[in-house]
């Protein structure tokens, strides 16, 4: 939130305490809803929405840990997602693992993601902006190509997972809780990163990398660290996704739409914030799933919709729901008076809350937003 100075119209102490209580209560409520969801709505087609939405919450949060904090937009996150899925599939097949034992492989899949992230990052993070985005796209295509052509990836038909002998009626429920655990973990890590010195270094890189470097931030190491964390989380949830769908193909594991969907979710919710990616994923993924089930909108319509929603968001609400909504609430609470009294009268007065933070969320904020 915006820093509160003692002369603001709203009493700072009470409003802050109220805000914290409301936030805590909201979190508890949200957690309760998330945990009870598959117990109340037991219909598999409904829990399916829950599982996939949580998988995307995890991915979007993980994407945001790296890209949201550093400003390096990666469109190659599917590299980790697909690699995790393939690592799980290959390990389960070659080591003849069956039943629930396969879930012990998840940390291994995370390690695979991390191992891929290091050379990927060492090459891609040498360049900035455009070129970085292009390199991530190129690496993404290399991985899709490898999935098509290597002898151990099953070619264009991909891999199938071993059968899990769970009853069909409650098949989704364990997956739901696994995905929920990952989503919670991913958000928690995002929050911890944000609060830490590490997160501050990442955001310093986003604002001005050369200056951050000049101030002693080991830019490459820090960026690579965030990239690796993000990759490991994405690879693990990719493996869960593979087991949930029972199969992976080169086009579904390494799917260009996956990357765009992640970016859309984060931008819709709020780029660089903690709750933004969660909100964005909870809006976009169920919407996409629902659109795909509508017979009238068969085929490529969901693709067109995704692109159109994306354009609308970028053009009309480029900062996302959470920051825009937060500003709106602040405006109502302070009844239009500026929430921050300008420290000096020299230079342009901060008439709107957007001015000082035009490059993203304020660096000074500590808590989850």
């Amino acid at each position: 939130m915006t820093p509160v100075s003692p002369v603001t119209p709203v009493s700072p102490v009470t409003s802050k305490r109220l805000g914290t209580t409301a936030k805590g209560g909201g979190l508890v409520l949200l957690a309760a809803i998330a945990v009870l969801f598959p117990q109340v709505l037991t219909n598999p087609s409904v829990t399916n929405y829950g599982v996939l939405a949580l998988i995307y919450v995890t991915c979007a949060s993980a994407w945001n840990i790296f890209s949201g904090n550093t400003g390096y937009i990666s469109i190659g996150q599917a590299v980790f997602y697909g690699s995790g899925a393939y690592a799980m599939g290959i390990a389960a097949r070659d080591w003849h693992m069956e039943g629930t034992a396969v879930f012990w492989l998840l940390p291994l899949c995370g390690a695979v993601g991390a191992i891929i992230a290091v050379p990927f990052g060492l090459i891609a993070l040498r360049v900035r902006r455009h070129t970085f985005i292009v390199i991530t796209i190129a690496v993404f295509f290399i991985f899709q190509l490898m999935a098509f052509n290597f002898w151990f990836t099953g070619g264009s038909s991909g891999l199938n997972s071993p059968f899990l002998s769970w009853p069909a009626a409650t098949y989704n429920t364990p997956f739901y809780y696994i995905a929920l655990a990952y989503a919670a973990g991913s958000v928690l890590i995002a929050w911890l990163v944000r609060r830490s010195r590490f997160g501050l270094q990442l955001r310093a890189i986003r604002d001005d990398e050369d200056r951050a470097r000049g101030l002693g931030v080991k830019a490459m190491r820090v960026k690579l660290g965030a990239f690796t964390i993000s990759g490991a989380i994405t690879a693990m949830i990719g493996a869960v996704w593979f087991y949930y769908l029972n199969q992976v193909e080169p086009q579904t594991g390494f799917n260009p739409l996956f990357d765009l969907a992640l970016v859309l979710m984060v931008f819709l919710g709020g780029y660089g914030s903690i709750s933004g990616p969660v909100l964005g994923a909870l809006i976009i993924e169920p919407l996409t799933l629902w659109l795909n089930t509508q017979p009238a909108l068969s085929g490529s319509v969901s693709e067109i919709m995704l692109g159109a929603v994306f354009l609308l968001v970028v053009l009309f609400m480029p900062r996302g729901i959470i920051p825009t909504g937060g500003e709106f609430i602040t405006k109502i609470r302070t009844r239009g008076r500026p929430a921050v009294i300008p420290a000096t009268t020299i230079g342009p007065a901060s008439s709107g809350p957007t001015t000082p933070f035009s490059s993203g969320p304020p660096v000074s904020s500590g808590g989850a937003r």
Partner: protein
Amino acid sequence: MAREITQAIVDGVLIGGVYALMAVGLTLIFGVLDIINIAQGVLVILGAYLSYSLFTKAHIDPFIGLLITIPAMFVIGVFIHWAFISRLRGTERTSMTLLVTYAVGLIIEGILFKIYGADDVQINPRYVNSSVRIFGFYVGWVYIWGFILAVVLVAVVYALLYRTRFGRSVRAVMQDETAARLVGISVNKVAALTFGIGVAVTAAGGEVFGLTNAFNANSGYDLISRLLSIIILGGMGSVGGALGASVFMLTLESVVTIWQPNWAVAVYYAALVIVLVYRPTGLFGRKAVRAQ
């Protein structure tokens, strides 16, 4: 063996000319607007489908149909710039434009799927499989015509850039946008026209692509990944670099295909990685990619 390699080189150079055309559009747009147009690949496919429709529905020869498709694609390009790109401002503009063009590409791809379905098609005039024997090598007429077309259009773009008043303002904007604005160049107009021209050349690129390859709405991804590699290799914003890199990469791919048809496309990515690690300005570029 030597014979096969020579044949591959001839093919590569001819196809490289066509890719040069598409890459020039992409690199021009980058140079002037500081944008990577991710939709370029899909726009090439749109150009191919336009030629395909004109040929199958109205029986217009694809090469003559260019008289219709090039202006049409120009208008589409100016529209995309006006509707989406010119509206973006602020610090995150560059990343945003990239995502916007990605989304535009996605929408076009979806529409093409809706209209034409997922089956591969190819533009099939009578002469598509006829070839001519030159020094003992068989070269398809389509490749020769495509190459001539590409050379002519690249020459037109060059003349436009270096022989006209408009070209001078384009180059001025490429060098320093603020200074160009100060001497009275309407940067927005130059940007719109450049985007239009960059997209218009995809009509010709798409036409030749449609004659030489079977394609569907998905083929754009393959194209854009190659084109991006090419313009980075050539040094982003360098028209000459894009020409050189296209011919070089397509020849290399064509030669590698002799031994490893499945992996040939990997030469783009391998070259990209090698160049970025050892020479971040690209093969022909002067401005460091890293500094941007």
